[in-house]
């Protein structure tokens, strides 16, 4: 057990690619937590996908021992944070377990929207923010400019900003000393009943649920009977320990310490992140402030291409949920796609990652319907009903209005791109608010915009309009009434539920034309003309036709070569088995996938 005065708990706030994982690697190496022979790139990013995409999805935690220049040995608990807006709720969890946050900024790229938002979050949480500029070894590095931006946000002097390179190791020692001197030590009360906050958990196939905790007050001892205050469940502390990053069991954790707890619980749902742990015998009166539950923002239907894989998909979702409590779903039936699930995601990246993991790790072939946000429908009796799927939208006569979620968005951009960004945002029904100059060259734009407008391709468009220089962050604001309509797509007069979408009235024609046009190219010619229509209620807004096939015959059956001809036709028939019948229309599986592809326009 370490005295609180020798403990420093901190997170790293950094934009994607600004070098957070590399810095973590360097810190592990410098403090001897990991021998060099065990070192591999991005040690804390354990998921394959995290390494491939160079992003952190799950927060990781590691305890470092550092011999400081003052001759004392300090414990540095690094609580890693994800860098993408989809996972910002994980950032707030991590921050709640810390006294300090290291704001790490790329010397060439400067402050980004996400890092700025997370810095504000850290300041609001009362953390000491330590500014550091990384990648000073890069030829394009402009550390002075980056330092000026940081000072304009955090105050202080440019000279206080640590300048370093995680890659070369330059400045890392200075950073460690700054962490020791600037991050406040924990101020827990050792003499009151135990209070520890649960800031993360994951499922381990052998050990059950592993809970990450930060002790605030009192002591946590192995074997002690514990009470989880929010769930009101009691579990024993079967094992407690440090993460170095390997699990090292210890007898006791004291105030200010960070570690793990294993209780034997196997179901992840029984442990609530944000809960306060106290002792069953001598409980604390008040829990610690918890955090908001992550709320899914984007919904999409996931259907197995092969209907027989429905159970396999359910099992796969359940397994993913073991380590991702934000993943929620309910069964959904589509006339066109059969049985599947309506799945809620934190954002588009989260959706992509889940889909990719389902397909890759669980060998599933999936069709995903167009992503949608959650709308609220005001019913004639005044009731306010949430709908997550266009299929659930009541007919116009059975509703009074529809509200849609808005977000507060922040974009940081070089000033030269302000024009195109304003054009993009207002074109997406955004209402522009403040403009704050971080420096003469860079500006922060605030605006409010419907979530549905930014959740799909907005980020890609922003990147392409600003050559990748702008960054975006957003947080939920409120629900507002909008002129929304449901656009149905009809094949030969039959609505195809998988293609329905709720869109703003001004965008309805665009959506209708896009879908009918795409489908015309994807649906093979049939025995009949197949009209493809987009409709709002009973009104057709766009129409295309797949003309009936006129010739489907082999002219000549040479010399009585009946066998070869039969084999050819049987092969063609096998190909047709992958068709889904929608009413009387044969639709190839690929048509669903291709028609629902999120735009890759640039």
């Amino acid at each position, binding site marked *: 057990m370490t005295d609180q005065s020798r403990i420093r708990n901190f997170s790293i706030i950094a934009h994607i690619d600004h070098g957070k994982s590399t810095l973590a690697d360097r810190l592990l190496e410098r403090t001897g937590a990991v021998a060099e022979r065990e070192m591999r790139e991005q040690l804390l990013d354990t998921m394959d996908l995290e390494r491939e995409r160079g992003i952190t999805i799950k927060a990781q935690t590691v305890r470092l021992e550092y011999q400081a220049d003052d001759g004392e040995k300090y414990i540095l608990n690094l609580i890693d944070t994800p860098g993408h807006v989809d996972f910002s709720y994980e950032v707030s969890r991590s921050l709640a377990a810390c006294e300090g946050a290291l704001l790490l900024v790329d010397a060439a790229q400067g402050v980004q929207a996400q890092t700025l938002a997370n810095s504000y979050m850290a300041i609001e949480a009362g953390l000491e923010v330590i500014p550091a500029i990384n990648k000073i070894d890069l030829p394009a590095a402009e550390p002075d400019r980056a330092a000026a931006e940081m000072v304009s946000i955090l105050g202080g002097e440019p000279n206080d900003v640590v300048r370093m390179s995680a890659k070369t190791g330059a400045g890392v020692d200075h950073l460690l000393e700054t962490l020791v001197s600037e991050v406040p030590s924990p101020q827990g009360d050792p003499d009151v009943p135990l209070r520890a906050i649960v800031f993360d958990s994951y499922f381990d196939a052998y050990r059950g649920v592993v809970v990450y905790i930060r002790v605030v007050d009192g002591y946590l001892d192995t074997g002690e009977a514990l009470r989880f205050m929010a769930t009101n469940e009691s579990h024993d502390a079967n094992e407690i320990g440090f993460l170095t990053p390997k699990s090292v069991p210890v007898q006791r954790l004291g105030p200010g310490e960070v570690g793990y707890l294993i209780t034997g619980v196997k179901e992840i749902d029984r442990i609530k992140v944000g809960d306060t742990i106290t002792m069953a015998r001598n409980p604390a009166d008040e829990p610690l402030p918890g955090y908001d539950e992550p709320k899914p923002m984007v919904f999409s239907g996931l259907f197995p291409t092969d209907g027989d894989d429905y159970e396999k998909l359910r099992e796969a979702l359940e397994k993913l949920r073991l380590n991702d409590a934000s993943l929620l779903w309910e069964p959904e039936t589509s006339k066109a796609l059969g049985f599947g699930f309506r799945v809620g995601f934190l954002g588009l990246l989260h959706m992509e990652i889940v889909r990719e993991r389902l397909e890759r790790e669980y060998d599933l072939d999936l069709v995903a319907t167009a992503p949608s946000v959650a709308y609220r429908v005001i019913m004639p009796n005044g009731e306010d009903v949430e709908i997550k799927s266009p299929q659930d939208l009541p007919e116009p006569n059975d509703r009074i209005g529809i509200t849609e979620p808005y977000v507060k968005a922040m974009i940081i951009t070089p000033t030269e791109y302000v024009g195109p960004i304003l054009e993009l945002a207002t074109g997406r029904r955004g209402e522009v608010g403040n403009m704050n100059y971080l420096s003469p060259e860079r500006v922060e734009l605030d605006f409010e915009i419907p979530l549905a407008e930014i959740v799909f391709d907005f980020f890609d468009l922003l990147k392409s309009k600003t050559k990748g220089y702008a960054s975006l962050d957003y947080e939920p604001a409120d629900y507002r009434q909008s002129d929304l309509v449901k656009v149905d797509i009809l094949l030969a007069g039959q609505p195809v539920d998988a293609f329905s979408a709720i869109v703003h009235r001004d965008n309805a024609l665009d959506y209708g034309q896009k879908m009918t046009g795409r489908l015309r190219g994807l649906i093979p010619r049939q025995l009949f003309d197949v009209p493809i229509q987009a409709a709002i209620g009973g009104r057709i807004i766009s129409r295309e036709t797949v003309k009936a*096939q*006129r*010739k489907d*015959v082999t002219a000549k059956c040479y*010399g*009585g070569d009946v*066998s070869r001809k039969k084999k050819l036709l049987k092969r063609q028939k096998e190909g047709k088995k992958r068709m889904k019948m929608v009413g009387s229309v044969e639709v190839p599986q690929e048509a669903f996938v291709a028609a629902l592809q999120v735009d890759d326009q640039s």
Partner: protein
Amino acid sequence: MTPIHADSFVGSAAAYVHIPFCAVVCPYCDFAVVEGQDDLAERYIDAVVAEIARSERWRPFDAVYFGGGTPSHLDPVLLGRILESLDAKHGLSDGAELTLEANPEDFTAERAGLLRRLGFNRVSFGAQSFDPKVLQSLGRRHVADHIAASVQAARSVGFDNISLDLIYGTPGERSKSWAITLQRAIDLGPEHISSYALTVERGTPLSRAVNDGAPAPDPDVQADRYEHAEETLEQHGYSRYEVSNWSREDKECRYNLIVWAQGEYEAFGNGAHGFRDGSRFRNIRRLEAYIETVESGEHPRAGTDPIEDWDVELDRLFVGLRRTVGVAHGPGTRALLDSDEGQRLLIAGVIEADESRLRVVRPLLTDAVHRSVLALQSPIVSGKADA
């Protein structure tokens, strides 16, 4: 032709003889053909004669079809040897139909006379088109005048059963050009006309050209051409008795009728196909391999597909539904009409059924019908499963 008459050919016996030699191979052709190998002709004929001599004794043939390649490209004496050996081994029925495929460019009256005297009584010319541009893009060596001259030559020596093959839908062909081709063909008064859509077959020079960006035939244009042919030929007294074949009354190709009535036919020569004793079979396709196999005393069979149980019925529908008369009802037609796909075909007006027969009435969609037929499950098997 009455349906009963058409179905009666199930009891006839036919033979197909393949002659692979051509002066020049056409770019769209994917048959077993060779050019520039005429030096092998005599060895080849020896091999075919040997194959016939060794074949299992059968009943006399009611129809023999010499297809190619270009049978007329060979010395008629060589073809005569084959006819002789067929007659010696199996016999030829009285009035048997003996057809020879011929190209118009060198079909002289002298050659015609020789062939007629050997016993051939039907000649089928690869006319293809009367439009010089179309003939050129099809890689044909003849011009329109050769066709008329050939027909005249054949007539002059007593051929009273002449067929012209036409090809429509060649990229670049105009609807007017097709109309003229049809009219000039009709003006020559053939007893029989086959008209085929130009088809891009895999592995042909045409297919390679299309893959490299040359225009491909347009199926909608081909449908227009087909409909035009159907109308024009009917107006001039030709009846369609199969997807691509029209004839004057009683001048249907008997060999074809036997194949489509599920009748039996023998196969001789490289790449030839036959149907006998419940099996469909084929010979070795490559010319030299065929010759060498026969010369070594072995049978030149490349493969045999026995048609058994339920497949016999599907096979009957498969071949029979190419005919205008369609097929008599049986378990297969009932299974089709009971299936969802059969109902769709019925509603779309592709097939038609009365109390005695099922017919394809939109012949351009015959393959769609065939795919559904081949997927039909045996009602007997499902009956067993229920028990």
